[in-house]
């Protein structure tokens, strides 16, 4: 289990993390999201025990990163966005080297096990420099798993992977969750986060902007509806504007013209929309609630976090 407690970290005058707190329970995947420079990599490096926090503490399985970073490193498996391999080594020698660094008993057996799990058995004696980008990323994942750690820190693990490999990687991560691993997934891929993460922590400029279940973050957004109709979009927009509803053109699944609008109180807003459109002679085909994605939630939360800066500039 990972317990990040009020962690701050500065590099010179730059404050990379400021009073960050969150938890990752065993059997849970938490997505750590945020724009570039938000502090995701710094946070994962502190949790991994390779970067000391300036203030606060991180507990991994109850062990403090300040008191015993060595034990923390034994419990964490880290996968970075770049494979970062020793490319002159063969896969077998590379994994065996990390098995020895982590004091894994029966290194040769473990190496073959991992190669089999990731479908690389026939490449064991090939030099890593000859591997494709996707295969290299698989090797980086195998490296993070050599000691079968209870905590996994994945920093953009699917970067540059083809869709098929990315999909098999997602399945693999989900299978690790089923084995009660605590998994922190730092990613820019919001679709990936929505698919596999249970919760999300959104960082903005080193602070936690929002944290919660991915479903709850999506549900917290203003309800959004899409109305499709036959007729002119510009006329429809102008009609809704006169009725006090701001709408934007969108694509509808049935091929008709469509407008999207937010409705905090659908019971009041939706009848207004329907009446206005019908009164203008437009024929309404469907009115459906749009399912909100984690991406919508992310942009809404980041925009909210950015507001004070924008106001300050304004």
């Amino acid at each position: 289990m990972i317990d990040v407690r009020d962690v701050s970290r500065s590099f010179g005058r730059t404050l990379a993390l400021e009073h960050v707190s969150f938890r990752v329970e065993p059997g849970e995947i938490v997505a750590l999201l945020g724009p570039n420079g938000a502090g995701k990599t710094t946070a994962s490096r502190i949790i991994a025990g390779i970067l000391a926090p300036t203030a606060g503490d991180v507990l991994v399985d109850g062990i403090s990163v300040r008191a015993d970073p060595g034990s923390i490193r034994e419990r964490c498996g880290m996968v970075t966005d770049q494979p970062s391999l020793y490319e002159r080594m063969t896969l077998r020698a590379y994994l065996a080297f990390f098995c020895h660094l982590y004091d894994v008993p029966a290194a040769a057996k473990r190496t073959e096990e991992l190669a089999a799990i990731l479908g690389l058995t026939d490449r064991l004696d090939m030099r890593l420099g000859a591997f494709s980008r996707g295969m290299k990323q698989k090797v980086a994942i195998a490296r993070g798993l050599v000691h079968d750690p209870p905590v996994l820190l994945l920093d953009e693990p699917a970067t540059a992977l083809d869709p098929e490999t990315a999909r098999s990687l997602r399945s693999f991560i989900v299978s690790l969750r089923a084995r009660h691993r605590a998994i922190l997934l730092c990613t820019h891929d919001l679709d990936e986060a929505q698919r596999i993460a249970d919760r999300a922590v959104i960082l903005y400029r080193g602070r936690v902007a929002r944290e919660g279940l991915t479903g709850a973050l999506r549900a917290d957004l203003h309800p959004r509806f899409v109305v499709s109709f036959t007729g002119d979009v510009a006329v429809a927009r102008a009609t809704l504007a006169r009725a006090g509803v701001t709408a934007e053109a969108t694509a509808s699944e049935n091929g008709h013209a469509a407008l999207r609008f937010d409705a905090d109180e659908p019971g009041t807003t939706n009848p207004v929309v329907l009446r206005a459109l019908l009164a203008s002679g437009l024929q309404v085909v469907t009115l459906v609630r749009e399912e909100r994605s984690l991406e919508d939630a992310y942009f809404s939360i980041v925009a909210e976090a950015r507001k004070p800066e924008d106001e300050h500039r304004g």
Partner: protein
Amino acid sequence: MGKAALIAWREIRWEIFGDRGAILRTGFFAFLPILFVMSGRGVPGGPNDISMLVLALQSTLIPALSGVALIASTFTQEKENGTLVPLLASPIRDIDIVVGKLLGMVVPVMLICAGSLTVFYVLGTLLYGASRVRHALPPEILFALLVVALLYLMTAGSWVLIVAAVVRTSRAGQQIAGLMIGLSAAIFAVLGVAATRIADGWALLGLGLAFVAADIVALEIARRVWQRSEVIGRI
């Protein structure tokens, strides 16, 4: 120290013997001392004891210069390629990484230094006669020469290590190593002149003491700049 040895072994097996460029560079440095002897440099009728010692010293130390380039490339490339991050994330002590890397450079380069000295000794025996060479280079002097080479390697390696912690690219690291090599070559040349004027034993002893002092300072600074948090903050 088991993990330091593991890192050293990986370095030697895969980075030095797996890199043709490194082998060529090292071979070039090892070849130079042989040229020294073969050029018939020295006094007609064979060099005197002091000249013989200077040639032997240069034959031993010049191959050690290749170690400076090796240590610079091994650390800066690790930083540049990001391979240092998984290493730092593993449960090993900071000092194991530093010692392992230094050992990975010192062991093969020392073997080359010893080989170069052996070649010098054999060629000298053939050219100047066994009794002349044995008189000028008794076993304790040969041993002292290897100790000086080891101390030089440790000193130069530690200073390059400090620089490698600060620079961001392997190109910058190599430039610094080049400067260090040039400076060392100049010092070795001055040393040759000094050794012909001072009694041989004192020259070696003085050099050894200077290296030990520089070693202590450099290793302590290297240990500090290569602490995990310091290094990771610069990657």
